[in-house]
């Protein structure tokens, strides 16, 4: 009897709870149906742990925008869907959310390299109608406006951009006898400066450039692809959609890596291959005074602010310098451009899409847009914001400098084969970093073999 009672009581409680929950669920369903004509609910999915520099900053920003929006539009309820995990986890979970119309977010924020994939699946609605009346979108530079344009229609809109340049420790360069402000004209100038640093300060890492696969597809966007962008053949994908697996530019880029690692100028693999946010490691190394130069993304400057504290470094603004990443033989700067974009669900109702459009308007309002830029480490896509004190003072002089460098940046491809291709080039750079005796040609052959094996010979091409 005692045994029966032990089993019966939890069953009774569970049964009551199920009935209560079912009743509550029915009641909620009835209520929402009743209010459907006047009330609209939209869901907004975003990466909780990767876009903003810290998770609390992201939560603060999204909550602030939601509150502001719901105050302006009391008939609309916004459900924020903070998708947890690193960027690969986020992409996987977001793709799974879209697989069902009941879970597909009305509005989602995802990397620009994913736009074509989502659009080709039929998950994204055209946004032209909602952008036609906005003032902020007209202020986007053409290159950013076109980021989400496919077949003449806009399917995604940038909320912020990442570009890349050179950071350097002024004191270390001075000790190495390099004149300041330092602005290399060619890749050879970078190597020469790194060699001087090594000679003057043997214990210091002369040059950081991301290598290997640990940072996912974005790691290449903060490292090797910027060099490729400044090579003689920067093409990644041809106009016919084939991925380039051999070119003069790829050879030059991998040869540059070979020089860096064979001459002992690069960072150790324990840092480069760290699963713990490798592209952000230079901000800690610079703070410790153990790094001379870094090919780094715009967000490193913001890392030293009090709000981000990764780590907080009050003297960073005077101790550190920024320069454009030169092309191989001079003639300007090169950088990749990758952003995080908003996309609307094709399965959302017209009322939901209108509400999502209004939500974007609030999110893209100047203060919100600049705060997102500051806290997520983005250059705001609205050109006039690049000189606004709220942006420039947040991480001076870095924010302003990277705003100036943005026009010389170029977009990364967005297609299904890009992730495979980028895995191949990251493996090639990782091979060189791990075994510096690996030549550029050997690494390129390995990359070509890997990408061709994965995509098939018909999907790749070799350029002269």
């Amino acid at each position, binding site marked *: 009897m005692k045994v029966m009672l032990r089993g019966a009581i939890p069953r009774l409680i569970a049964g009551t709870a199920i009935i209560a929950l079912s009743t509550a669920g029915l009641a909620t369903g009835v209520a929402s149906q009743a209010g459907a004509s006047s009330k609209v609910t939209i869901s907004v999915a975003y990466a909780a742990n990767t876009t903003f520099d810290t998770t609390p900053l992201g939560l603060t920003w999204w909550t602030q925008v939601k509150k502001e929006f719901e105050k302006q539009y009391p008939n609309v309820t916004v459900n924020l869907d903070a998708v947890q995990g690193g960027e690969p986890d986020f992409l996987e979970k977001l793709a*799974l959310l879209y697989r069902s119309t009941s879970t597909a977010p009305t509005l989602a924020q995802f990397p620009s390299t994913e736009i074509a994939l989502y659009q080709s699946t039929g998950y994204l609605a055209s946004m032209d109608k909602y952008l036609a009346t906005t003032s902020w979108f007209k202020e986007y530079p053409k290159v950013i406006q076109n980021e989400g344009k496919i077949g003449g229609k806009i399917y995604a809109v940038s909320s912020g951009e990442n570009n890349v340049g050179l950071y350097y420790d002024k004191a270390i360069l001075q000790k190495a006898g390099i004149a300041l402000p330092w602005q290399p004209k060619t890749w050879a100038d970078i190597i020469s400066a790194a060699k001087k640093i090594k000679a003057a300060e043997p214990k210091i890492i002369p040059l950081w450039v991301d290598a290997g*696969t640990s940072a996912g597809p974005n790691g290449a966007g903060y490292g090797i692809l910027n060099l490729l962008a400044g090579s003689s053949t920067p093409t990644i994908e041809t106009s016919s959609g084939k991925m380039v697996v051999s070119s003069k530019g790829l050879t030059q880029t991998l040869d540059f890596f070979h020089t860096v690692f064979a001459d002992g100028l690069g960072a150790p693999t324990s840092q480069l291959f760290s699963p713990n946010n490798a592209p952000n490691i230079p901000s800690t190394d610079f703070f410790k005074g153990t790094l001379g130069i870094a090919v780094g993304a715009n967000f490193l400057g913001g890392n030293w602010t009090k709000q981000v504290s990764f780590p907080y470094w009050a003297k960073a603004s005077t101790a550190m310098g920024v320069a454009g990443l030169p092309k191989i033989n001079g003639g300007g700067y090169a950088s990749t451009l990758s952003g995080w974009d908003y996309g609307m669900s094709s399965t959302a109702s017209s009322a939901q899409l209108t509400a999502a459009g209004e939500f974007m308007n609030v999110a893209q309002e100047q203060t919100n847009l600049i705060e997102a830029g500051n806290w997520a480490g983005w250059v705001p896509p609205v050109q006039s914001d690049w000189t606004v004190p709220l942006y420039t003072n947040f991480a001076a002089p870095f924010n302003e400098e990277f705003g100036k460098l943005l026009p010389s940046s170029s977009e990364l491809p967005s297609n299904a084969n890009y992730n495979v291709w980028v895995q191949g080039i990251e*493996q090639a750079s990782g*091979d060189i970093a791990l075994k510096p005796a690996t030549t550029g040609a050997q690494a390129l052959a390995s990359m070509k073999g890997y990408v061709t094996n994965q995509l098939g010979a018909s999907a790749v091409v070799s350029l002269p």
Partner: protein
Amino acid sequence: MVSTAVVDTVTGPPLQELWKTRHDKTRYQWSSLGLLTPTFALLIFLFLVPMGIAIYLGLTNLTLIGPTAVHSSFTGTANLIRLKGDTTFWSSLWVTGIFIVGSIIGVVVLGYTLASLLMRATAWMRVVVGGIVVISWMMPAVTAGMTWYASTTGNGTFGTLFGHPNANLLDAQPLLVVTLASIWSMTGFSMLVMGAALRNIPSEAIEAAIVENASTWQRFRMIVLPLLRPTMTAIVLLTGLLALANFSLIYIMTQGGPGNSTNILPLYSYQQAFTFNNLAYGALIGNVMVVIATVFGVFYVRITARRI
């Protein structure tokens, strides 16, 4: 009554007839089908149906995202042909084999060594050492992976102990290090099982061998090893299956890298399905793993059945 039975036996059907009669049939009851139904249902819905779907998925062009994410179709043997020519898959299969064999050898040898040493240890030593080893077995893969990552990279425990604090063992010998981590995480289980089996070996047999002047090696080879064989077989097969499915440990430590040097099949399947969005091809690689696991399973069932 007793005498009748004896007479029946004596005057019963000839022996050849008795051989033809299946006596187990009399024990078979159709009503037992009802009792087996829940098991059949579970087998069908939790194993056969999902397996069938997984096999079908492996023969489609389904992607996680992209045009065929919504409208996928059956592509026949296309994925199988791709698999045949996929050099990364074959290299992954090879790496998986090394990882499994290395894990098995390490777990069996280390488990036996620890178990036999602990048999001779003092009580408190047995508790302390046994406790530490069992904790390492109970540790979640995430913690084990992070511990080994921190110990084998720059400024890690191993490098510091051997006087090279900046040595990066994980990147220098990735497959060896992840295999050692796998061995470390499973040895506790092997030690416990092996310890129990060692305690069951009759001491008389060992004592008799000592009286017969048998050396330590002879005692091990002629007495201990044959008596431990069933236990070792179970450990070998279970370790093999656990190593085959050991996704988390390697994902945390190396994500399959550098290059593809630690890219075991579960990681390659995941990479295809979720990094490259090829759900179907990822499922096909998963099916290959099921085949490998089935081989292990059949081997295990046959060996355990032989013992019965």
